[in-house]
């Protein structure tokens, strides 16, 4: 499998690897994929009161393209609003990393991870409002 230089760079030097406290009301966690399918991505975002993503962390079990896709999105989403990151398309990720057709599913998974993290955060915030 020939990987693009960008994939290799993210694979060798993944950005923003790590975990944040899941129970923090400012943290949204998205976990997508399944071990049997060969990919599991966990993406976490931390959002300030201004609605801007201050930090992002990921962990990925998967091939080089899956690791690179999730590493790349952590770079992209920092400093953006939730509405802005919902506009990121898997095709943007695939294009940036020059993913071959058999690896497009990795970019789809990364897009799903963003959506899952945002949905988790929104659910947390709305339940917090109900409680208040």
């Amino acid at each position, binding site marked *: 499998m020939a990987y693009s230089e960008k994939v290799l760079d993210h694979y060798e030097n993944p950005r923003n*690897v790590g975990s944040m406290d899941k129970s923090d009301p400012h943290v949204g966690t998205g976990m997508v*994929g399944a071990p*049997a399918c*060969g*990919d599991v991505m966990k993406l976490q975002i931390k959002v300030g009161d201004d609605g801007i993503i201050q930090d992002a962390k990921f962990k990925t*079990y998967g*091939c080089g393209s899956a690791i690179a896709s999730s590493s790349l999105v952590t770079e992209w989403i920092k400093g953006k609003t939730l509405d802005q990151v919902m506009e990121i398309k898997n095709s943007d990720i695939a294009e940036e990393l020059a993913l071959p057709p058999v690896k497009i*599913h990795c970019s789809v998974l990364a897009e799903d991870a963003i959506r899952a993290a945002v949905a988790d955060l929104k659910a947390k915030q709305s339940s917090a409002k109900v409680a208040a």
Partner: protein
Amino acid sequence: MSVKTPIYLDYSATTPVDKRVAEKMIPYLTEHFGNPASRSHAFGWTAEEAVENAREEVAKLVNADPREIVWTSGATESNNLAIKGAAHFYSGKGKHIVTMQTEHKAVIDPVRELERVGFESTFLSPEPNGLLDIEKFRAALRPDTVLASVMLVNNEIGVIQDIVAIGNICREQGIIFHVDAAQATGKVAIDLEQLPVDLMSFSAHKTYGPKGIGALYVRRKPRIRIEAQMHGGGHERGMRSGTLATHQIVGMGEAFRIAREEMALENVRIRRLRDKLLSGLQEIEEVYVNGDLDQRVPHNLNISFNFVEGESLIMAVKDIAVSSGSACTSASLEPSYVLRALGRSDELAHSSIRFSIGRFTTEEEIDFTVALMKDKIGKLRELSPLWEMYQDGIDLNSVQWAAH
């Protein structure tokens, strides 16, 4: 530590030709180029003598009569000739074949081909340690079973099947017994005068000989008959036509001579290296050896690394040349069918590595490999959400995954 990378640890895929073998082959390409079938001049006689000397060397390694050795292009052809040749010759007796799920494709596919022309087959599953349960084998036999084929040493997991017990049952019931020994020569002692085996396949290139040459042992007492699969000039007593590749044959003979003389010492050295590799890798948490560790050649160590994904693992270990249980390198995403047959999960089958050690492996290379694996597995696990969950005590089987 100075080692040249990538380090070759894929001796079960193929071996380098031993320099002594290569030197012996060369004159048979240039000076002694005669056709061994030419009976009317010295060029032919010289080539024929070289072929017969090599046949004797091959026979000696496995304690057979040289007249029981038929040259082929390799173990794949030997398996085809043995299985299709015997099944067709004895098809009047019955049309049922018994073999294993963990056989090499060069056995599985000829059996599948026979199914297409009216034979029936039973593919036995191994025990979780890769070995065949003899009672299950006995129970699978039918009155119309004509042929059984079980490999001696498995190519992926290195386990050694009990071909004495299997062969004895075949003898009792008058079933032809074929053994694929491509991975066994120079690794385990083979004595065909004692073994209850009728047909046995050999390859040169797994034992420091050249690619493109192999042999099939065909028992003379009691005489086993096979139908030729390659028709032509009637070479090799009519069992395999085609001009003999003298230089390749000379190479196989020399490789098998060296194996006979050096295997005892070589295996001691290789076992020591294997033990060192194994104990080093076992310092890593959550590793699983695939296949029985005792009934196994020391040359093979097949290990699954839990919570890391197969393809990224292969990317991480590019400084060592190894085989992976994950077929991601090929077109399909299917994990190894051998590991699946042992009952390994897809994840563990994907994240397996076959290390195979050989004649030119050094202790420094083993040390380098252990250090590399510790470092890379550590890095990949740091990246792995599954490893994190495992560390947190979460049972991954209880998680509802969103399959995609």
